[in-house]
């Protein structure tokens, strides 16, 4: 591999990491509360609220409905507003983030739904505030599931990030597409795919370990 190519890969790797980190961080910061909100406003839960449930659920579904490439386009004004530019990896990460949040929120909600109702009821019986129940019961109990969900989210995002090239975001996937695919540089293609595979294996491995460590059952 030429030093030039090595350089390219280095750059692409950094771009991917950068985009992913931003998206993942926001997916956690916003997706978790959103998932919790979707859960605690469900029927029979302590913040039961059909309206919020419906509205939040619909917004989440709307975002998930839009093909990523369209999302990229639709979000250009927003990206521009936030970052002052709608190009480059940071700009791409805005769309990735927007795609990641509802995706992860749904997985968080699904994990929360697996919690034994009795445990929640028992916590309520202590007179604990909803906030404390969320913090000390729901989140810890759902942690293994939420970690597994995050693994799924990150891996899906990695696949999405290949489309970041549309707005000049770069990254490993884009390298594979632009050079490997469009320019028939099979070596680039193979190397990028291998890098991606290693990355995914690593993410899955770490995710599994963390989920197992978090599970006290």
């Amino acid at each position, binding site marked *: 591999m030429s030093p030039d190519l090595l350089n390219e890969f280095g750059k692409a790797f950094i771009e991917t990491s950068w985009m992913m980190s931003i998206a993942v961080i926001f997916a956690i910061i916003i997706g978790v509360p959103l998932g919790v909100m979707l859960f605690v406003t469900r029927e029979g839960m*302590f913040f039961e609220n059909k309206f919020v449930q419906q509205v939040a659920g619909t917004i989440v579904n709307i975002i998930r409905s839009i093909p990523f490439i369209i999302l990229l386009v639709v979000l250009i004004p927003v990206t521009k507003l936030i970052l002052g530019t709608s190009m480059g990896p940071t700009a791409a990460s805005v769309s990735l983030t927007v795609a990641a949040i509802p995706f992860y929120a749904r997985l968080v909600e699904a994990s929360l739904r697996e919690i*034994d109702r*009795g*445990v929640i*009821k*028992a*916590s*309520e*019986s*202590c*007179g*604990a*505030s909803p906030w*404390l129940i969320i913090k*000390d*019961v729901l989140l*810890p*109990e759902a*942690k293994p599931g939420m970690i597994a969900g995050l693994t799924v989210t990150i891996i899906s995002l990695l696949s999405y990030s290949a489309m970041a090239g549309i707005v000049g975001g770069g990254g490993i996937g884009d390298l594979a597409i632009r050079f490997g695919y469009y320019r028939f540089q099979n070596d680039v293609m193979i190397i990028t795919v291998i890098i991606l595979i290693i990355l995914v294996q690593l993410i899955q491995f770490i995710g599994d370990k963390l989920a197992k460590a*978090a599970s*006290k*059952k």
Partner: protein
Amino acid sequence: MIQIQHLTKRYKNTTAIRNINLTINQGEIFGIIGYSGAGKSTLLNCLNLLEKPTEGKIIVDEEDITVLSEKEIRKRRQKIGTIFQHFHLISAKTVFDNVAFSLKAAGKSKEEIHFKVPKLLKLVGLQDKANNYPAQLSGGQKQRVGIARALANDPKVLLCDEATSALDPTTTDSILHLLKEINRNLGLTIVIITHEMEVVQKICDRVAVMEAGEIVELGAVYDIFSAPKHPLTKEFVQSVQSFTLPDRLLQERKGTIVKITFRGDSAENPIISETLAHYPIMINILHGQISYINDKPLGTLIIEAIGKKSDIDAAIRFISERTKQLEVLADVA
């Protein structure tokens, strides 16, 4: 203190509780017994509003708590401890943190939590399991965590759903002793569901007997045990006072077999002695039990009276005048 009025709880295909009316007094230990599936747990869960009653009111301190706001319910719950039949521990938290959760729920400070949790764990004998997770505990250990958790906030009312069902007798005794002590010293009101009649005997003041969602009998424990009225109650009482004689004994009997039930003071009088002093018969105690409920003795003895028929008959008359109840099980062979 707690007034339950016309309480009904229906599930899709079952009515778990039917129009229950009940008053539980401040500071008493109130037992609930009944067949499996009678609606005991459901009734208890209505008391802390974990189940919304379908109909009826629950009046605590002159307020109907079924219509309170969420926030007020929370406030009240901090003063109600509940021990659940199925424990319901937070599986992702250690024993320590499970108990600490209760204290946090009541807004206690970190220092207070670190001071109090070890004390509570010691109380239930789990100090060395503080850092275990529920999955690493035996059934009884889980139950004890549940007990510690329920007691954490010095509740005014303690609801116990089979609080000792997974515990060995020694631990059960120590827990019951503990509850009784708190009840005496702090005036804690305890509602206790149990199927262990010994538990009722040992600590309850009054007891309600439930069947198919209704209360079929209600009274002071001593009365229920000494004079059960409803067939179900009789059945339950008998289960702890079962006096079935082995067939062999009945066949080999030489005299008349009589079952005597003592109540209250009569148990303290030397009836057997007096009878023997008055009549020239022999008395052999075949079976029996005397127990003290609320310091009042309640006893049953099955005796064999051996002697002349006329003497025996006279003796039986003599005894029956002096005791609550007398029943001739088998006449002289």
